[in-house]
């Protein structure tokens, strides 16, 4: 098992290096200049001397090789430097957003797990009954409906119903307060995006749970368990579900990592100051240092999540760890 873990850890290095090289090169292919943008908002006259000065200050006048090596060396030391756009430490800029994105990701994941595993199981067990049809319809609707659109509907629904019921329209707060400062306020803001995102997420996981469980239920060892006279509940819980969850764990892991940086539109709909919005802003502003840091952060989250998923795999399935 230790050898397995070590191997997985070593594989992270080339993956992260590849991501670093890719983002570094792609960013420099995009036309535009952070200095021009920062000084004029895009339009207007820029003093060439000020541009030269700005580029020198940001280290953009150095060769690409030096810039890349500096970026890698800083990353290894967890020194992300300063944002080229705001001039502030990247860790400070990312810190607050990371907290919010992590909370939403955890809440959405919990929503998805709470919905997906029971619904997927019921759907598989009650295959081709009306219950199965309802669950499948529910999950297909979740896959078909973009979470940001669901978010818009939720906000409009809240505005309209609160106006009808209480006389004045209510919508979730648009400014984040950490959960330990004001739990009620925090939840009134985060619960709706978590539900909107978690629903779509759960839909995928429900479908996966159902199909994986159906496959497992047809295995010989399940038939043997039935032949022994075990009750259905025990067969599902002890013998089938654990094995059926392998692909579901993968889906949950990938989706969780995706949620950390990929909720761009949902964040905009609910005015969440998360990593997705920062990502878009940093790309738009040609903020190389910030974009590089965010890509490396998300890549690290993906790599670590995959690592954790692999470990869970090995834990769930002894064949993997003894291979």
């Amino acid at each position, binding site marked *: 098992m230790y050898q397995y873990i070590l191997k997985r850890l070593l594989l992270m290095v080339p993956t992260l290096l590849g991501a670093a090289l890719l983002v570094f090169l792609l960013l420099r292919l*995009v*036309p*535009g*200049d952070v200095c*021009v*943008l*920062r*000084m*004029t*908002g*895009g*339009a*207007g*006259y820029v*003093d060439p001397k*000020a541009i030269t*000065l*700005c580029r020198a200050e940001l280290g953009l006048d150095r060769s690409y090789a030096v810039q890349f090596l500096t970026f890698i060396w800083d990353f290894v030391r967890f020194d992300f430097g300063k944002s080229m*756009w*705001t*001039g*502030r430490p990247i860790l*400070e*800029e990312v810190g*607050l*957003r990371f907290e919010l994105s992590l909370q939403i990701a955890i809440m959405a994941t919990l929503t998805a797990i709470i919905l997906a595993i029971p619904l997927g199981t019921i759907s598989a067990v009650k295959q081709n009954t009306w219950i199965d049809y309802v669950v499948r319809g529910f999950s297909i609707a979740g896959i078909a409906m973009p979470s940001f659109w669901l978010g*818009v509907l939720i*906000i*409009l629904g*809240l*505005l309209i119903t609160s*106006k009808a019921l209480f006389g*004045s*329209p*209510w*919508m979730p*707060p*648009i*400014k*984040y307060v950490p959960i330990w400062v004001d739990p009620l306020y925090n939840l009134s803001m985060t619960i709706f995006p978590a539900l909107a995102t978690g629903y779509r997420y759960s839909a995928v996981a429900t479908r996966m749970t159902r199909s994986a469980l159906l496959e497992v239920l047809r295995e010989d060892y399940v038939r043997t368990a039935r032949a022994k006279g075990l009750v259905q509940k025990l067969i599902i819980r002890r013998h089938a579900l654990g094995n059926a969850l392998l692909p579901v764990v993968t889906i949950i892991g990938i989706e969780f990592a995706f949620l950390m940086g990929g909720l761009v539109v949902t964040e*905009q*709909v*609910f*005015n969440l*100051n998360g990593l997705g*919005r*920062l990502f878009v*802003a940093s790309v*738009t*502003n*040609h903020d190389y240092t910030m974009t590089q840091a965010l890509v490396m952060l998300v890549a690290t989250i993906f790599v670590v999540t995959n690592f954790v998923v692999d470990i869970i795999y090995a834990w769930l399935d002894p064949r993997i760890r003894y291979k």
Partner: protein
Amino acid sequence: MKLSRYLRPVPIAAVGAAIAIGFAGPPVQAAPKQGGTLNFVVPDEPPSWDGHRETTFALIHPFAPFYSVLIKVNPDNPSSPTDFVCDLCTEMPTPADGGKTYTFKIKPGVKFHDGTPLTAHDIVASFRKIIFPPEGTTSARVAFFVMVDSVEAPDDHTVVFKLKYPSGAFIPALATPYNFIYSKAKLAEDIRWYEKNVMGSGPFKFVGREAGAYVRGERNKDYHVAGLPYLDGFEAIFSNKQAVRVQAIRGDRAAIEFRGFPPKSRDDLVAALGKDVTVQESDWNCVLLFTPNHRKKPFDDVRVRRALTLGVDRWGGSESLSRIAIVKAVGGVAFPGHPLAATKVELEQLPGYWPDINKSRAEAKRLLQEAGVPDLKFVLWNRAVDQPYTIVGTWLIDQWRQIGVTVEQKMEPTGPFYARLRSQDFDVTVDFNCQSVVNPLLDIGKFLSEDIGNESYGGYTDRDLDKIFEAMNRTSDTAEQRKLMRQFEKRVLDEQAHSFVTLWWNRIIPHRSYLKGWKVSPSHYLNQDLANVWLDK
């Protein structure tokens, strides 16, 4: 700055007499109430917090309340381009020395938020940073002050500006809302201190900021205007999605957004909130232009360029577009309603403004035929911003379709779009001109020859046009200025057909009715210190 040689004597009065800009005026105000926190939404966050460096309104809306300025537009009459009042000075000065010396007496007892006194030396240090930026700093408004020779403080309560020549552009330039007064001591400590820190003497004190989320201010109890501000504090909440900003007002998470909303959002808010929402509107000192690249064939042919403007029905466009976009007023090169702007009768003489659009389009087709491009095809480059760029761009395509011209619209984000304009890699482009203090004499600098107008992208050199501009800025006679403005306008829009005005923007501000004391101005940069704002809750 090459523009400098054109900024010549113009008395302040000649900048334009007080104008009546058409806007649905604010409601009658009751007696102001103290207290409460104003929440408002801001579409963007500025790169730095230094007003001297930045050009975006995203800096003004959250940060202007922290600072005092030397002079400002009158908050009770913000629509006037000539009504300036003192903020830190005691009275507006009378120019001496043939209009070359302005002496400002500074209010005694003004304190910065850290309790240190604000003196004339702080004002001088701030304006020196703006006008003569030291090595390593950036000032966005050096060009505004090319007429200034020196700024001195003979004592703690006197600031003297000496000009190289009398200029009517000086006072409006001083009133630019970005001219925050900084502490001389802080600047001496680090000239770039204000890029990341806030410490002014304005009506509100900086409390805090969360990156990408909000900026918070609290009432400055030592504010230099007795009784102000009325609010206990404010919170500027960043929200880059317009739909969210509209819903925020509807759901009362914010009382106002100071930049402006499109008509549809106004109508939605009015329908949803009824008397709980108040709408203020004003003509806006921003305009979208379209500019052919004179260096590219067939746009080097004046007939082709004239055909493009003749094909556009501005009068009809105003009616239809004003229902869906933030554009409305038909105007020439000067801000509509200003004394120097063309009247409707004068406009109707210019191509593209004729009252009979069929006659205009027939002439456009004839010119294209004559130029040998009856089936002209080109790419219109546009900025990927919905309001009003995409809408106006799409409208232009339809207008040109009606004279047999086929146009493909390509849109780019702001950075690459302006990089393209600077490199003149386009056939025809949408462009804009947006200013704070209404000052047509300087605002039309956009149309000058490319080696003079810093933001002129058409790739043309027209010395006759430059001479008219120079003459206009040298004369002190308003009637003469007006006559020259007409010549300038005719040369730009007709004879040489260099660049064209589409429709002037229309500023629509729907806000919660409990917000009082704020008056709409023709610029989203003006009147934003929030000192007079109060909440009727």
